């Protein structure tokens, strides 16, 4: 049995469809109920929905053999897992944004509001820029508007929220997309099955290119 951690939400649903098209379907997942785990014993697969930022924890700690999560989560938490495939969906970017009129003249400590403290720290450490990290859990865009921070480091998909709030992208840190991750120990003992799933998903990614 292969345990798959899927991220709750639109991305997870897209990913499930890719699994289903690869022959790893699990019809019970489409039923409208409060079940947490969905299993298809014939196909030897079990799915469960988890918070997107928790997918890497489930996989690293072996509760899930494989999972799908954004590159942002992998960069932030740096789990010790295999990253077998870029699924090429859920595309967006990790970026630095600020008020349109903001200009960083490097004269003082930069106040950075973000959910991604590790990514932000590493980005500015590579530039030897002195920063003050303000860790927030949501509504990051609010921070520069209320002068809680100078800039934000966050995921930007379309940029609409930024635009509507008089903010703009100042710098792209890294492009983001959904990745297929695998627990290292599971890969040793379930090699063939995991390889097969990865190959089927890869074929779909290449077909969509």
């Amino acid at each position, binding site marked *: 049995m292969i345990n798959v951690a899927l991220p709750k939400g639109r991305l997870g649903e897209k990913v499930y469809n890719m699994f289903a098209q690869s022959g790893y379907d699990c019809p019970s997942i489409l039923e409208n109920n409060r079940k947490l785990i969905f299993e298809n014993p014939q196909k030897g697969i079990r799915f469960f929905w988890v918070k997107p930022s928790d997918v890497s924890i489930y996989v690293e700690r072996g509760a899930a053999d494989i999972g799908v999560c954004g590159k942002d989560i992998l960069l932030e938490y740096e789990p*010790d897992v*295999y990253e077998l495939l870029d699924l090429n969906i859920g595309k967006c970017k990790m970026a630095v944004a600020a008020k349109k009129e903001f200009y960083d003249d490097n004269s003082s400590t930069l106040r950075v509001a973000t959910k991604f403290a590790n990514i932000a720290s590493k980005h500015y450490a590579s530039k030897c820029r002195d920063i003050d990290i303000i860790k927030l859990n949501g509504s990051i865009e609010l921070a520069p508007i209320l002068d809680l921070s100078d800039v934000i480091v966050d995921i930007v998909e379309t940029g609409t929220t930024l635009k509507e709030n008089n903010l703009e992208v100042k710098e792209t840190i890294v492009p983001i997309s959904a990745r297929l991750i695998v627990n290292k120990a599971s890969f040793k003992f379930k090699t063939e099955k995991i390889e097969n799933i990865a190959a089927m998903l890869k074929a779909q990614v290449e077909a969509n290119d």
Partner: protein
Amino acid sequence: MLDEKYLKSEERIIFALRSLYSKYGYLPYKMSKFEEYDLYAKNKEFLVSDGVITFTDTNGKLLALKPDVTLSIIKNATEAKGVKQKVYYSENVYRVSGSTRQYKEIMQTGLECIGDIDLYDVCEVVSLSAKSLEAISKDYVIEISHMGILSAVLEKIGGSEGFFAEIAECIRKKSQHEIIECCEKYGVDKNGANLLCEFVTVYGAPSVVFEKLSALGLEDSLPAIKELKSLCALLDGKAQISLDFSIVNDMNYYNGIVFNGFIKGVCECVLFGGRYDKLLTKMGKSGGGVGFAIYTDLIAGINKESKGYDVDVLLIYKDETPYKKVEDAVEWLVSQGKSVSAQKSIPEKLRYKELKEMED
């Protein structure tokens, strides 16, 4: 008298490992919990994590709570031609844990073979790593790589130091899409990128792997492949091994065979090992070294049987019961092979199989 039923599963495993290593001539090595910080500052990249807990000794020297055992053993290793120092240890080390990013006390059991070592010693150490995991579970696998093969591949491709560091991370993750990105970033041509992408898919049984390597143009004449082949031949049928070149240890310290161990049911790698001649050279020692460490706390949950109770008998006595009578009753129960807790009233959290109340 040792009554094995009272040993915890990790204690039983450590006991089995100690007897295994002693049989092969490895001597116990007990060390202090503290070491001068300087030793780690000079060999920072050898450590698994950067966080070292330091404190100042009464004489002003900066000390550290040991984050690693190997460096201390090498520091004290003696050198003589044809001689190897073979030691084993069971020690706690203090590190920042990867997932929680907090300090953690980690129990390690392992061995080191240091000195004038040859392929026999490497084979003995890898074979002992397999026997160690077999003592814990029949479902195990030792995954072996050779740093020389990756070096040969990278030499073929060429590139800067920065490229080597970044590509090593992509190889560790078996991430072909990131290999392609990294090659593009550093201006490595398509052939190089394709070779690396193929290289990370080479894993599995030795016979299959060697065939794939030669298909990639990595010939048997390469010293690293020769050595790996000889090792696999020596271990053939004696250990559950597979080859996987995504094991990439720091190239400044490790130069030959490197290996990891996995046990079914444990979500992380439980055994790390390798040959680290370059580390010895860096520390001003001649000869080479090979060893491994098992993370014993990761295997604590294996073979754990829950009895459902803490003691066989809960013996309740009264204030007026003569102590001699209580003592006799306890001794009698113990002589019957039972565990017993003598109490005056029933403790809230104690689980017992049988309740006996003493009369006056």
